[in-house]
C-alpha cells in the first residue's frame, strides 16, 4: 500500500468519525432533553419532526444563522479564539479512541496519555473565554472552572493508574484486550468510583456544574457568547461527555468487548455501553442538586485524593505479591 492510499484511507476515516461524532453529539442534546423531560413528566421536544427528532438540526440551523455578537469591550481576538480552543481538543481526542476491534483512526502506544494531555487543553479555552468576555459572571465562572478542572484532572489521572497497572500498556486497544479475562471494574471498584466522580466534574455536569451554574452565574463563562460560538462550547461539552464515557468504558468495562456467549459485533457492544454510561450522566442531572464551590474542593482533596492513592498502593502491593 503506497502512502497516497494510506493517507486517503486515514482521511476518509477522519471524515467519517468527525461527521458521525458531530451528529451523535447533536442528538445527545436531544436525548438529554427527552430523558429529562420524561423524568419530569413532560414530553420534551415534540414539534420538529416525529417526536421532535429533527429538533437538533433545527437548533443547529438556528445557532448558525443567529447574529454573532462580540461585546464592544471584550478582547476580540481572545474572544474568538476561546471557543475554538475548547472545541478542537474535544474532537482531536477522538483520533485515538477505539470504537471497535478494527475501527479506530490511529493506534498510539501512549493513547491514554494523549487523551489526558489534549483534553486538559480545553480549560485554557474556558479561562480565555471568561477573561475576554470582560463580564463579571464570566470571570467568576472561568475561575471556578479553572480550579475545578485542574484539581479534578489530577484525580482523574490517578484513578486511571490502577487499571493501567493491570493492563501494562497505555495503548487503548491493548487495554481493551487485557480485559478479556474480566472487566477492570471488578478489580478496581475504588478507581472506578473516583473516576466517575472526577469525570462528572471534568465535564461540568450536575452535581458539579458550578462553572455554568445558571441560577448563580447566569451562564458562567459563556454568558456573553451567542450564535455559532456558543454552539462550539455546547458541542465541546457534549463531545467531552462522550470522550470521558468512552475512556470509562474502555478502561473499566472492556470497551468493545462483549459478554461471552452473546454474539454481537464489537461496535454494537461499544454503543450499548456508551449509551448506558451517558444515560447515567443524564439521570444524575435530573436527580441531584448542585454542590458548592468549597464543598467540591473538599470532596476532591480530602476524600477522593487519599482514596486513589490507597487504590494505587493496594494495586501495586497485590500485583507485586501475587502476580
Amino acid at each position: 500500500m503506497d502512502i497516497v492510499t494510506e493517507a486517503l484511507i486515514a482521511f476518509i476515516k477522519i471524515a467519517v468519525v468527525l461527521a458521525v461524532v458531530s451528529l451523535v453529539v447533536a442528538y445527545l442534546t436531544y436525548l438529554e432533553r427527552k430523558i429529562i423531560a420524561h423524568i419530569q413528566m413532560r414530553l420534551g421536544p415534540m414539534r420538529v419532526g416525529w417526536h421532535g427528532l429533527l429538533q437538533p438540526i433545527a437548533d443547529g440551523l438556528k445557532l448558525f444563522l443567529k447574529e454573532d455578537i462580540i461585546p464592544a469591550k471584550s478582547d476580540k481576538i481572545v474572544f474568538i479564539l476561546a471557543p475554538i480552543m475548547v472545541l478542537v481538543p474535544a474532537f482531536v481526542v477522538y483520533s485515538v479512541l477505539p470504537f471497535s476491534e478494527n475501527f479506530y483512526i490511529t493506534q498510539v502506544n501512549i493513547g491514554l496519555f494523549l487523551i489526558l494531555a489534549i483534553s486538559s487543553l480545553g480549560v485554557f479555552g474556558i479561562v480565555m473565554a471568561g477573561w475576554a468576555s470582560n463580564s463579571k459572571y464570566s470571570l467568576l465562572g472561568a475561575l471556578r472552572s479553572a480550579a475545578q478542572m485542574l484539581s479534578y484532572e489530577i484525580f482523574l489521572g490517578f484513578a486511571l493508574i490502577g487499571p493501567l497497572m493491570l493492563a501494562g500498556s497505555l495503548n487503548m486497544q491493548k487495554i481493551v484486550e487485557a480485559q478479556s479475562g474480566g472487566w477492570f471494574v471488578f478489580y478496581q471498584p475504588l478507581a472506578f468510583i473516583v473516576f466517575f466522580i472526577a469525570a462528572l466534574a471534568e465535564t461540568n455536569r450536575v452535581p458539579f456544574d458550578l462553572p455554568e451554574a445558571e441560577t448563580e452565574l447566569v451562564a458562567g463563562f459563556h454568558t456573553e457568547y451567542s450564535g455559532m460560538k456558543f454552539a462550539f462550547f455546547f458541542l465541546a461539552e457534549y463531545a467531552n461527555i462522550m470522550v470521558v464515557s468512552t475512556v470509562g468504558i474502555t478502561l473499566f468495562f472492556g470497551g468493545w468487548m462483549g459478554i461471552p456467549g452473546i454474539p454481537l459485533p464489537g461496535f454494537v457492544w461499544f454503543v450499548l455501553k456508551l449509551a448506558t454510561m451517558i444515560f447515567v450522566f443524564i439521570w444524575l442531572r435530573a436527580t441531584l442538586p448542585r454542590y458548592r464551590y468549597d464543598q467540591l474542593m473538599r470532596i476532591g482533596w480530602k476524600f477522593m485524593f487519599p482514596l486513589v492513592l490507597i487504590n494505587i498502593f493496594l494495586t501495586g502491593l497485590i500485583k507485586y505479591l501475587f502476580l
Partner: protein
Amino acid sequence: MHEIEESNSKIQTSTVTGTEEFVVNMGPQHPSTHGVLRVILHLEGETVTDLDCDIGYLHRGTEKIGENITYSMFMPYTDRLDYIAAPSNNLAWVTAVEKFFDWEIPIRANYIRSMIAEFSRIASHLLWLATHALDIGAMTVFLWCFREREMVLDLFETAFGGRLTVNAFRLGGLEQDVPEKFLTLAQEFIDIFPSRIQDYETLLTNNRIWIQRTRGVGIISGEDAVDFGLTGPLLRASGVNYDLRRAKPYAAYPFLDFVVPTGENGDIYDRYIVRIEELRQSVKVIQQCLDQLPVGPVSCKTPRTIKPPIGEIYHSIENPKGEFGFYIVSDGSEAPYRVRIRPPSFINLAALKKLCMGELVADVVAIIGSIDIVLGECDR
C-alpha cells in the same frame, strides 16, 4: 442613580497590592433573584463582604391607589401584591375592612375562606419549593411542584373563574357559593397530595448534597429574627412559635385543629422542613374544612355603599410568607383616607444582609430562595 454611585464609592481598594473589591450586580435581571430584586454584592473571592438590596423595580403605588377608590374596588389590587397566593391577600383585605363593622359573616363563608387560604398557602409553598430547589440545582422538583400547583390553580378556576389573580372574596362573605364540583375536586387533590409531598421529600430531605448546601447556612437566631420583625416560616424555623392563625384567629381557624411546626437552628434546612410540614398541616386543615363545611348562606347583608365609621384599624393575617396586614384610616367617606400595607416579603428581606455576610455567592442564591420573597408585595 445616586445609589449606584454610593455603592461604587464604597469599593475598597488596597493601595499595597493594587487589588480591588469585586462588585457584582445581581439582578434586576438574574435567574434567581425571584423577580426584579437587585442585590449589589461586594465579593472577596467568592465570599460576600458587603451587600446592598435595591428594591422598587415593581413599585406601582398600590397604597396611593387605595386612597382614591372605594373599599370594594380595592379588592382586585390586593390580588397583585403577593400574586403567588392572591386569595390570601383578598382575605386580609376583607377581614380588615369587616373589622370596622359588626357584620355577622356566615359560618359557611368563613370555612370556605379558610379553605381557600390554605389552598393558596399550598400554591405559594409549592412555588417556593420549586424555585428554591431549582436555585440549588435540583431541576426535577421544579416541574413536579408545578404539576401540583397547576391542580390548585384549576381549583381556583373552578371556584372563582380566575387562576392567578382570583378576586376570591367579597366584603361580607363570598360573591356566590362554590360549585359542588369544586368540593369533589378539592377532595381528590387532598387525597393524592400527601403522596406527592413524599415524592419531593424523597428527592431532597435526606439527600446529602441538599443537606450540605442548606444545613448551617444563613442562620438567624430566634431573638434576632424577632428583632428584625421577621414573620412566617422564617421566624418559626428559628424556633419562635408565632402563627397569627393561632395568635389572632380569623375566619374559621378557631374551630380548626392544626399544629404550628417550628425549627431549631434557623438555617435554610429548617426553613425547608418547616414549610414542608406546613404543606402537610394545610392538607389537614382543608380536610377538616371539607368535613365540617356547614350549609347556609355565604354572604351577610351589606349596605350598598360601604362607608366605615371614622377611625383606624390594623388587621393582619398569616399569609404563606408571613404576617400580611392592612392599616386602614377611614374618614367616613367611601374611599379610605390611608391604606398602608405591611408586606412580609419587604420586612423579611431586610434580614438578607445579616443572613448573607461571610457566606459564598452560591449561598446568597439559596438564602434569597429560603426567605421566599415576592417582589409584587415587597415593592407594592
